């Protein structure tokens, strides 16, 4: 007979050991699935690793993917800490990119790059924040369900940017091709050590979010609200205010991702710019247990998966979406593993007779 009992408390080390075991198991499981689909799992995983860190160029590609994922995850982390389910990262990235693009195409192109990029960043933070503000306001004011709200805002943002690309902002110089004009050189992020300086933005965002959550009064308020709204109210916190402020930070960071991608990678605005980072960030944030440094590590691992997945397509002609499936499988296992941290499962023949 199977018996389930609640555990007292596990040392932190054991907790992470269980999670690591879950990730390992999920890889074994994913390998089995890959084998069942007729591919060689060892080869697939080897190619994922090879494709993501196998050469300097591939490593750079991986870092390029880790940058937007990390910045977005930091934004999502702030919202999740408050148990505000911000599923709207995609839309906030889009709107941030739109803000940056507007600035890039309308400011005088001969502005000094520093000033230009600062304006772009500010525009993206404001637009991303504003996009997040709308659901935050309704949640704070009326208790409106933020999950569906933020999600719908994604679709609206993507449709809106599509409209800009195909209609309103279409570059007349593109000979009818639906494309928005490219950024002037002064609006493109420079490179440092071979990678655009977005990596510095990502590192800074991790440090700042860590300090915000753990060492500031606002961060403390966010955490208390996430744990218990009633207690926060009782302690005299202005919940609406904190909720909106935190969402401005969350949306602002996602918006900043949009600026980085638009300026450094696409050098313009396209409707596919958000590239699912808003969704993947949800997974990475959860896997990192809402701890900024842990989330950053997970982000890098996921960037490897994404980059390695793309490489698979070239190397083994396996669709890149296999990486998405593996992501889902890993998260399923880690989600399930929490149970074994909270509860102990023991198998015994009914113990009733063994009375001391």
């Amino acid at each position, binding site marked *: 007979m199977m018996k389930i009992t609640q555990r007292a408390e596990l040392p932190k080390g054991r907790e992470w050991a269980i999670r690591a075991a879950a990730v390992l198991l999920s890889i074994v499981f994913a390998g089995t699935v890959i084998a069942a689909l007729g591919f060689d799992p060892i080869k697939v995983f080897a190619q994922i690793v090879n494709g993501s860190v196998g050469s300097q160029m591939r490593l750079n590609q991986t870092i390029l993917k880790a940058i937007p994922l990390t910045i977005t995850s930091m934004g999502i982390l702030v919202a999740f800490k408050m148990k505000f389910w911000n599923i709207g990262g995609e839309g906030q990235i889009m709107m941030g990119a739109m803000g940056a693009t507007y600035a890039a195409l309308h400011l005088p192109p001969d502005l000094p790059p520093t000033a230009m990029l600062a304006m772009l960043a500010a525009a993206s933070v404001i637009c991303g924040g504003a996009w997040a503000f709308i659901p935050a306001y309704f949640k704070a004011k009326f208790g409106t369900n933020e999950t*569906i709200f933020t999600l*719908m805002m994604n679709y609206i943002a993507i*449709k809106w940017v599509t*409209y800009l690309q195909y*209609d309103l902002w279409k570059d007349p110089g593109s000979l009818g091709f639906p494309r928005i004009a490219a950024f002037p050189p002064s609006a493109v992020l420079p490179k440092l050590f071979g990678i655009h300086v977005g990596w510095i933005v990502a590192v800074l965002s991790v440090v700042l979010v860590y300090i915000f959550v753990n060492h500031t009064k606002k961060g403390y308020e966010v955490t208390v609200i996430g744990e218990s709204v009633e207690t926060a109210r009782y302690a005299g916190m202005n919940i609406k205010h904190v909720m909106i402020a935190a969402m401005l930070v969350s949306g602002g960071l996602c918006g900043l991702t949009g600026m980085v991608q638009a300026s450094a990678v696409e050098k313009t605005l396209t409707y596919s710019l958000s590239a699912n980072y808003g969704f993947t960030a949800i997974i990475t944030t959860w896997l990192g247990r809402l701890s900024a440094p842990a989330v950053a590590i997970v982000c890098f691992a996921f960037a490897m998966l994404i980059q390695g997945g793309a490489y698979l397509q070239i190397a083994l002609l396996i*669709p890149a*979406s*296999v990486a*998405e499936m593996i*992501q889902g499988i890993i998260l399923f296992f880690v989600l399930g593993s929490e149970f074994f941290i909270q509860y102990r499962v023991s198998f015994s023949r009914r113990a009733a007779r063994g009375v001391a």
Partner: protein
Amino acid sequence: MENFLAAAVAAAMPLLFATLGELITEKAGNLNLGVEGMMYMGAVIGFKAGFATGSPLLAVLGAFAAGAFGAAIYAFLTVALRANQVVTGLTLTIFGTGFAYFVGKGMSGLSAPQIVRDFFMPVGIPGLAGLPLVGKPLFQQSVLAYFGYAITVALAIYLRKTKAGLNLKAVGENTAAADASGINVMLYKYAHIIAGGGLCGIGGGFMSLVAIPVWQEGLIAGRGWIAVALVIFASWQPVKALLGAFLFGGLSILGFWLQSIGINISQYLVEMIPYIATILIVIVSTRKNRKEDMAPADIGNAYFREER
């Protein structure tokens, strides 16, 4: 006008199946945000099954099974392992989408076989299809749409009139009390989550087999999420879910209709309308007051009998 309404009803059907699926899932106290993912799974497997066998029935069964399979993963994680329902559902969406794109890789842009498409062509119900105004829209539809009507009525009766329906309500409202009253809580949860996932799968299958009928990436386009919102709009009542689905079906084809009557707005702007309308619904439904119109009280909470 009749044509517009008929197209609206057809466009409503994927939403209807998914909404009903999520509705019974939520009645069991589980919020499954994986509807989008389950619809994708249903769409691709339904299409593949139809493509491989040429059998419409097997295609629909395949769609159901795929959605149910996704839901079974979710159910195991949230019911047996008590994982966070919101995150598990989101993961299911990501997994389901990846799964569908992976499985559907070689079939992108292909149409469903002729025999399957013919089977799902609109057929009129003698007598009813001739009714003025509503006849054609409601009763000149695919057989799968009629199946949707039937499921709606069956679920309405199930929830209102049967003991099992009453027990289900008890499970979703207060799982501990239902358990103490002798209801097999686990059985109810698993059965309804999995059946609900199957319905979501059929909703996806409707897209790839009847509505388009082509497999392509991006096919579901947020319909799963609209379905989640429609459950709130419908106050967890099947008949209202049908009405909500009609409404959104109409909104989703508004663009074509506007163009057809000569009003020229960018299709991208018109395509925003269902999403904006969904937000409006979510805002308005926050202000419900009747206890009977609210979400099952125990939704989102993992149940452990020996909790102290």
